[in-house]
């Protein structure tokens, strides 16, 4: 798939591919997203704001220039930000592909890093020469101010122009805890939220510290996604319960929302509060909460793609991939979107009986499955 290389969150020609529970494909302009929701559905978004997590500076022991990409934190508590995990690069910046970036100087515990107004100390290496735990000096307010002033959004070579914070904050961005944008949420604007409300669709949020999507290092990439802390508000738990009672569907906006909800649901009953999502979702995962995911397009082999395998069979995803490619869908964070419903043949045994009943009594399930298959569909013209 070709990369979307301009930082535009909602291009007017953005496209949507809908993969139904029965494996049917449907093409639509993304401006029609709201029409795929039904009365009683619930959309859950990640309202994490994106940190400017790329910090350029100097490794003081060697004098070498480095780029530190903050990558993880153990909690979301706003005053618990001394210690981060971080991926360290050598000289250069995002214009070089991460795979081609120079290695940093050898790092060891005790090294100090001068990062603009910030000073950080390497606490230890995390089983990899480029992945470190580091601690910032100073008060929480001073650290936040330093990150705000000096940091830049993490970005990759496929987008050439430097990203500003407003390029990577979704319309509902709140707590600054994401290391990369929860980019599925770029589809949201206030007009969409209004349209959903008019359709009788509820909207809720959680806060999930979306981590790096790529490090350029095969060994590190294999460890993605790192553990990600999240906060699930009581209002969202309540909204999910109401949705279930009304036989509505829970639609997760993005992989981070799916990961957080399914992690929270693994300790039943679903409860509000803080958690640390440490599971990897894939073909063998049972989805307890999420009925469909709206996400960017992802390429096979990435952790994001693995997560889609929890929703649909490999055969269906392969057809979807071919369709995305054949129809010029764009990938990466500013690209087009997919809507993937949890396949009817995916295991749902772990759901409660009541929820299972709610599933089969979906009002429009029959109409959908009788929709004709589209083997080689044509694009509907946008607008």
């Amino acid at each position, binding site marked *: 798939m070709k990369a979307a290389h301009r930082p535009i969150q909602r291009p007017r020609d953005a496209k949507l591919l809908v993969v139904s529970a029965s494996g049917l494909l449907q093409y639509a302009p993304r401006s029609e997203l709201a029409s795929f929701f039904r009365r009683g559905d619930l959309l859950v978004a990640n*309202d994490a*704001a994106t*940190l*400017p997590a790329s910090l350029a500076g100097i490794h003081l022991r060697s004098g070498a220039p480095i780029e530190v990409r903050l990558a993880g934190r153990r909690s979301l*508590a*706003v005053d618990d930000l001394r210690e981060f995990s971080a991926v360290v690069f050598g000289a250069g910046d995002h214009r070089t592909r991460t795979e081609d970036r120079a290695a940093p100087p050898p790092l060891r515990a005790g090294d100090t890093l001068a990062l603009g107004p910030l000073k950080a100390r390497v606490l230890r290496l995390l089983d990899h020469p480029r992945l470190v735990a580091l601690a910032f000096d100073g008060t*929480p*307010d001073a650290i*936040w*101010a330093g*990150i*705000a*002033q000096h940091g830049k959004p993490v970005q990759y070579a496929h987008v050439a122009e430097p990203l*500003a*914070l*407003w390029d990577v*904050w*979704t*319309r*509902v*961005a*709140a*707590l*600054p805890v994401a290391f990369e944008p929860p980019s599925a949420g770029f589809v949201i604007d*206030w007009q969409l*939220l*209004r349209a959903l*409300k008019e359709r009788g669709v509820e909207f*809720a*949020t959680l806060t999930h510290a979306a981590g790096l999507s790529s490090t350029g290092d095969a060994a590190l990439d294999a460890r993605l996604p790192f553990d990600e802390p999240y906060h699930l*508000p*009581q*209002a969202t738990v309540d909204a999910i319960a109401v949705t279930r009672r009304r036989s509505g569907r829970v639609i997760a906006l993005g992989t981070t929302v799916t990961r957080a909800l399914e992690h929270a649901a693994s300790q039943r009953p679903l409860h509000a509060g803080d958690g640390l999502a440490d599971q990897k979702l894939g073909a063998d995962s049972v989805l307890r909460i999420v009925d469909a995911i709206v996400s960017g397009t992802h390429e096979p082999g990435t952790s994001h793609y693995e997560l889609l395998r929890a929703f649909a069979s490999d055969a269906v995803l392969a057809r979807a991939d071919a369709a995305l490619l054949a129809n010029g869908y764009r990938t990466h964070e500013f690209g087009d979107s997919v809507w993937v419903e949890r396949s009817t043949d995916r295991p749902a045994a772990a759901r409660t009986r009541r929820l299972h009943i709610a599933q089969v009594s979906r009002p429009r399930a029959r109409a959908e499955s009788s929709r004709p298959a589209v083997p080689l569909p044509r694009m509907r013209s946008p607008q």
Partner: protein
Amino acid sequence: MSSPLPTLQDLRVAVTGGTSGLGLALVRALHAQGARVAFVARDASRVQRVAAELAGTHGIVGDIANKTDTHRIALQINAALGGLDVLVNNASSLGPVPLALLADTECEELEAALAANLVGPFRLTKALLGSLSASARDRRGSALVVNISSDAAVTPYAGWGAYGASKAALLHLSRIWNEELAEHGVRVISFDPGDMDTPLHALAVPDADPASLKRPADSARELIAKIVAEVAA
């Protein structure tokens, strides 16, 4: 001093222009009544002084008239308070000093007044709508944006063109936004604090008798009563 209002306890409030005049009085009163307060101002040393004086408040250095500062400020507000319930857009620019007739006002002076009094509050509010709407969902009460207004927003005073026009625009922006955001539980209101004894007023009317002017602390108390009424609604 009135007794502490229970509804202010732990309310997360951000105030721009928080190191002088009404903003400072507001920060002091909110802090005294148990709110969690972040404040924004341009001058680092003044921000530091106020933050040191009022332990537990969070001082943020930034210029709301500057586009590139907006998200940095919003980030620090959200981080300092863990979200936001109330935003008070208080920072204002008078326009040309001394006050000038509109026909003598340079376009750059009008633009600067619009940047500080209209576009700045617009941008900062927009950047903070995520946390404000999250507050409304979580608390099941209203989140609130207060835009500080003036009678010059309504009455055409000669010599107050840049200020009056920018405040009139802000007043109308508040009314439209209040309509649009009602469904998300975010209220947007205007508050006219009256003629106060503040640095801004001294710039506008250098020979005014301070005794004839309201004390900022009195206006702050009125505004806090209004905030309490709105967020409890």
